[in-house]
């Protein structure tokens, strides 16, 4: 399984690393993933903190026996699935084309 990189492959990596496409790929990825991670962590921690310290608010009844706590918890499910869906759309549209291009370029370079 041990992988030994030939100098040619290593140089190909280095060239791709410096290319505009790679910079754009990294920028697109971090531009999406980092703010999104911060957003859902804040959203989740707000929920955890409310559950522990804002119990009065969480115990407020909405309809019948359904309280804010339950709705808030179910919204965590909704937001998680929504983020996963948005992310897969974003990756297919913005990330995969560049990544595929780089992959082709890399294979051409090492097979030359």
């Amino acid at each position: 399984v041990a992988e030994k990189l030939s100098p040619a492959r290593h140089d190909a990596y280095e060239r791709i690393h410096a290319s505009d496409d790679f910079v754009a790929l990294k920028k697109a990825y971090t531009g999406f993933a980092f703010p999104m991670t911060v957003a859902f962590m804040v959203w989740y921690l707000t929920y955890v903190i409310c559950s522990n310290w804002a119990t009065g608010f969480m115990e407020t009844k909405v309809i019948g026996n359904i309280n804010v706590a339950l709705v808030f918890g179910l919204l965590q499910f909704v937001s998680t699935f929504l983020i996963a869906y948005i992310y897969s759309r974003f990756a297919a549209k913005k990330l995969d084309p560049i990544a595929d291009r780089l992959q082709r370029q890399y294979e051409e370079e090492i097979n030359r």
Partner: protein
Amino acid sequence: MNVSDDNAQTLTTVLFLAVVALTIGITIWASRNTKGAADYYAAGRNISGFQNGLAISGDYMSAASFLGISGAIALYGYDGFLYSIGFLVAWLIALLLVAELLRNSGRYTMADQLAYRMKQRPVRQAAAVSTVVVSIFYLLAQMVGAGALVALLLGADSQALKNLTIVGVGLLMIFYVTFGGMKGTTWVQIVKAVLLMAGTVLITVLVLAEFGFNLSDLLGSAQSESGKEGFLDPGLRYGTDSTAKLDFVSLGLALVPAGIATILAFAPPRPDLILVAGLGIGGIAIGLAAQGLAVVFMFGPALAAWVVTRRFEGRGRTRELLEIRFRPNRWWAVAWLLPLAISLVILGVSLALPWLSLDPGMSALLERFRAQLPPEQFEQIRARMDLLPVHPFFLTIVQGLLAGPTLNALAAFGEELGWRGFLFRKLAPLGFWRSSLLIGLLWGPWHAPLILQGHNYPQHPVLGVLWMTVFCVLLSPLMQWVRARAGSVLAAAVMHGSVNALFALTLMVVKGGDDLTMGATGLPGLLTLLAFNVGLAFVMRRGSTPPAA
């Protein structure tokens, strides 16, 4: 048990056996369609994204999530639900921060990725060791849970029958992975995911229908049935005081690295890792089996080593590859007698330590017996001891020298075929010291199930695991040296058998310490073994060619 109970029992048994038969069928089908390494490790790269996703869901939907979370909700109401959300959100971390980068790098596991930028060997070692250690402790709980569940499903009442089902479940798992490869494992997980999700949807619909699809009524009824005030509100579990509250916030944060660790655990199975999983299961089985049965389960490592070697490295050559060779040379005598010499040195070291003293009347030993045995049996043993013509210490030496290379060696062979047979050869490229260190690090925690039950270190079962690991790490080079010189794994079995038979000597005539500070597996033993290792390093430097596989 009335008639309807009997019917339900029959139905669950039939369903259970049907699922087992289905998964065994899949495994056999997969093993017939598996040719070559790419098929075995990566299912011939023919698993689609959707199939893989289902399989990973199957992996995620473990007994822990199904039984653990529904149990937590039943006990703590809303706080059980709160707990489950941590797992859900942690999944986003893996998705956003790990998966994309790993995929774009064209590598399969964290170790593959890290190994590109760093030194291969240490990264792989670290990944392998952490996977094994986590798996052993994880499997421990999983297997007990699975066994208890199966016993419940099949209506097994006696403890022996329950233990047997746990062993059966373990064997079934080894069978799935070793024979089915990646293809079999993936399909078994897909079946599991589909069954579990379909079952959950069905139960959810049936329960909601019971309440006329009115969620509020369902919750109200749960509240009144639970008999707990505030069952639907946060705070029953994590809100008792501010420490509990902070605990939960830190738990919430801890789930984040847990999400990442899960990715690491998805490393594609390699024969070595499968072997180790087998070793783990064997170890667990030991912990669960009664003492008398333990001997049988020491053969877990042997079974795994034999199956893997036979399957991957050529039939017919298995014995040769594992060096199961009966051609005694003088190193066999060393294997037989060295443990006695070490025990006597440990005894000497013990007497030099300030807190230990000579105890020819064996009062400390008798005290331990008195605590463990019924009074009449204890009196019997004591009476018999008084009749002995010589001191029991010498009888133990004779008995140990006879039992060590025979009866005990036979039992130890089951372990040795894994450690000094398979791993010895596989890890030989690492060099003598590193490979014996790694074998020691696997060999030690393998004893955890036994030690946690109070063997070897009855006063310190948890710390005992650590002590035992140090003990195994220190004993490993000596075993490896003798085994390499003797050129046979059978010599290692003789030495292991003699160690098991003779190291008890170090506890017989000494008093003054506890299980961590006396005996071969306590401080005197560890210090002595350390000195023996220094001696071994010296011998190896003095021109003796280092033994290699």
